[in-house]
């Protein structure tokens, strides 16, 4: 199990981004992590994949553990080698490399299984197989997201950390990505799914967390969160009668901002 306990993270020695966060990602499960902009979701994923350092972030208190062993201070390469793969917010494919080269970089820690994993990824994303020689930068947003996920899968990770995979994608593509996450999970990979699209995330997750201002404010089975009045209002845009209008507007406005910001 991958977990954090009472984690406090500070950026640039001053910005407190996580204030005592505890979260668990059991093997083979899908866990959803929801929260507004700036809540600290990406920061939490960075702590789980060793990528805080490059952002001048550091763990002040608490721990990141893999099967009970503290791994918080290790290098990112170590996290990848131990089977934790982070798909960064905003896809971040290597734009000037081909699709196939992107995948080969993803296999950096599992070179001996390159052929096997390539086949599996092309099986999950047949479109990528057709475009294997294309330059990644010319792929559509949805295709780039699939490539980013496929690249992470090239080392057959035990845990996949997905940071807003549906960001800026059309509903049909979002549905495809949802199905693929389910498929990946059914093959045994634990998934931590950070999403603005709460409905999609809670639909497939077994457990969910809601973050606000660097804290976990809800920690419940996904089915319960789906029924929760606050979550329905603020994340699903389905408020009680009378409040619907204003919260809908908030949600829409918020989504729009989110798109510009990305």
């Amino acid at each position, binding site marked *: 199990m991958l977990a954090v306990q009472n984690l406090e993270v500070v950026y640039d020695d001053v910005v407190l981004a996580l204030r005592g966060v505890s979260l668990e990602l059991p093997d083979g499960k899908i866990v959803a992590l929801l929260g507004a902009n700036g809540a600290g979701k990406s920061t939490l994923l960075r702590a789980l*994949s*060793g*990528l805080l350092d*490059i952002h001048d972030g550091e763990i002040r208190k608490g721990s990141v553990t893999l099967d009970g062993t503290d791994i918080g201070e290790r*290098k*990112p*390469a170590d*996290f*990848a*080698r131990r089977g934790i*793969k*982070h*798909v*960064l917010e905003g896809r*971040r*494919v*290597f*734009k*000037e*490399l081909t699709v196939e*080269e*992107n995948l*080969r*970089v*993803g*296999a*950096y*820690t599992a*070179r001996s299984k390159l052929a096997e994993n390539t086949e599996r990824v092309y099986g999950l994303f047949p479109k990528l197989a057709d475009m294997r020689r294309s330059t990644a930068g010319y792929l559509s947003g949805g295709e780039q997201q699939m490539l980013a996920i496929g*690249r*992470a899968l*090239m*080392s057959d990770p035990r845990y996949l950390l997905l940071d807003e995979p549906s960001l800026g994608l059309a509903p049909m593509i979002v549905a495809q990505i949802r199905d693929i996450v389910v498929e990946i999970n059914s093959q045994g990979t634990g998934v931590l799914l950070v999403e603005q699209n709460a409905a999609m995330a809670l639909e497939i997750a077994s457990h969910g967390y809601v973050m606000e201002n660097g804290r976990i404010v809800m920690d419940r089975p996904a089915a319960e969160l789906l029924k929760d009045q606050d979550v329905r209002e603020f994340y699903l845009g389905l408020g009680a009668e009378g409040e619907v209008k204003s919260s809908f507007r908030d949600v829409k406005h918020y989504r729009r901002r989110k798109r510009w910001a990305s």
Partner: protein
Amino acid sequence: MTAFLEAVGEGLGTGSVYALLALGFVIIYKAMQVISFAQPAFMLAGIVLVSYLAESVNFWAAVPIAVAAVALLALAVERVAIRPMVGKAVFVIAIITLGVDVVVRVVAGAFIGVDPRSVGDPWGQEVVNVAGIDMAQRNVAALIAMVVVGGLLFAFFRFTPIGLAMRASALDQEAAMAQGVNVGTVFATSWALAGGLAAVAGVFAATGGPIDQNIWIVALAALPVIILGGLDSLGGAVLAGLLIGVVQAVVATYQRDWVPSLETNAGPIVPYLVMMLVLLVRPYGLFGTKEVERV
């Protein structure tokens, strides 16, 4: 016409040396966004090593040994002097490479001594007739070496996992790290490659006669070459190196006809002139893609 073609032949030889040096600069730049001013020192270290080794083993054995040794030296320098500074301002790291250059260059230079030494190359001042024009064998050898080394580099960056990881890391360092690429390995490899390339360049810069104490200045001509080629372009480094080498040789041949009053050799200023002229038209150099930080 023959004089012109002979100048071109000469320029291709010098240009190949520039290209080999420029490749090293560009490889380090792509890995860590730093221009390493230690390249002249690695070049000189390579020359000195070959000149000593060539006394006991022959030239052909001396070169690979020296190239490997300088690559190791560069690796050590990166580990000891550069890695601890990662995260500091790019400017600070550049200054440190300048310090490294002075130290290594003074030490290596001390071994040149007062008696004339040479790298013991088999070409000397011999010429070979290529399609009717005389070309110095040493220039032909430099060109062949550059093409072979360039081809090997191309294969390295295309087919090996670490080479591919280096390209990925140059495009998006964080995303590369998320794939398990160790940036420390990327930095170290870039320095080792640049060190080895500088040593090869040094050998061909030093062929044909006794070693000049100031031969390292040749490596500085690679600076306008990388600006001209585009700091982040390996192909640009090769083409710009050859271009500047040829223009320089042609100017050196004809300067007396063009500007009779110019007594001294105008060759050394040519790289800078070509660079400035091209930058007026193309601010990122001939092949630069990324927006490079400018002052």
